[in-house]
């Protein structure tokens, strides 16, 4: 864990991102994405677009939560998971 100053949390974080990307590749091979319009305003999105928007949104949810609240970051994590799933499913 000394290499690149890894910590367990950051390792889990990047492994999760990697697993999500592998799942996206598998999903694309099994069932190619079709652009569609969901609840996201103005734009039609592909599966990859929705993942990007979901992850970027999650990052901002965490930052906003950390800026305004002293409570546990796990609350922000919970909100982010709901947001990510919602965007992927209905975005």
């Amino acid at each position: 864990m000394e290499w690149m100053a890894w910590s367990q949390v950051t390792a889990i974080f990047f492994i999760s991102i990697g697993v999500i990307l592998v799942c996206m590749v598998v999903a694309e091979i099994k069932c190619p994405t079709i652009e569609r319009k969901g609840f996201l305003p103005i734009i039609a999105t592909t599966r990859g677009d929705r993942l990007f928007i979901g992850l970027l949104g999650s990052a901002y949810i965490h930052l906003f939560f950390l800026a305004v609240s002293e409570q546990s970051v796990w609350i922000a994590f919970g909100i982010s998971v709901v947001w990510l799933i919602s965007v992927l499913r209905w975005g």
Partner: protein
Amino acid sequence: MNLKVQNNKAWFLVLPVLLLVAFSAVIPLMTVVNYSVQDIFDNSRVYVGTEWYREVLNDPRLQASLIRQFIFSGSVLLIEIPLGILVALMMPTKGRMASLCLVVLAMPLLIPWNVVGTIWQIFGRADIGLMGAFLNGIGVNYNYASNPTDAWFTVLLMDVWHWTSLVALLCYSGLRAIPDAYYQAAKIDQASAWAVFRYIQLPKLRNVLVIGVLLRFMDSFMIYAEPFVLTGGGPGNSTTFLSQTLTKMAIGQFDLGPAAAFSLVYFLIVLLVSWLFFTTITHLDNKK
């Protein structure tokens, strides 16, 4: 159903680029993430979780830098984009003068950032600088080293001088790519100069303007060397932008954890704004 099996071996050709991007961008970014959740001092590391994020997000010094940075980038775009279009429209289309204009316009782009800062530092000096001495000579009390308004004016003017050429050159290439048939049709319809600009030139310039706006936004948002050399962030903190605050934190104070946390916030802002620009323009393209 007889589906032809696609040969995907060509994807292996992407591998060198992937490795290059991994070593130059992804792995350093991962290191920054690692640093942002730890307190690193000498050889010891302590896991601190989200503490640095809370600290930097509530740091008034960084908030002030962020606001200054947005004002600066907004001002740069508001000045350089229309000015660049205007310069491109006024440039000769052919002949020696066209070549001369292109060379003259390209010159500021060839000068290194810190040299640009030095040029304007001397140019703006109230005692020996051409601009500073001239302004004081005609009765304008100008001193960028002591007056925040003058410092902002000089930093903005320097950036406009350095980078408007880029927008102008991009627009010029866009204008030259418009087929003559459009202008001939406009002439037959007796279209005014404004109508030609509004309905022919501006729509055709959209793609180059997207590149111009994106480049100028990202570059101005990351500006460091020019204001650092020119004003050193002063007077006070009036021209201290994000990258200067970050550098001071990371290299001056060796607060690697907070600096890493703030780098990621900085990165997310650039990512969001660039994505919004890109998506808006792509959407406009698809709508057409």
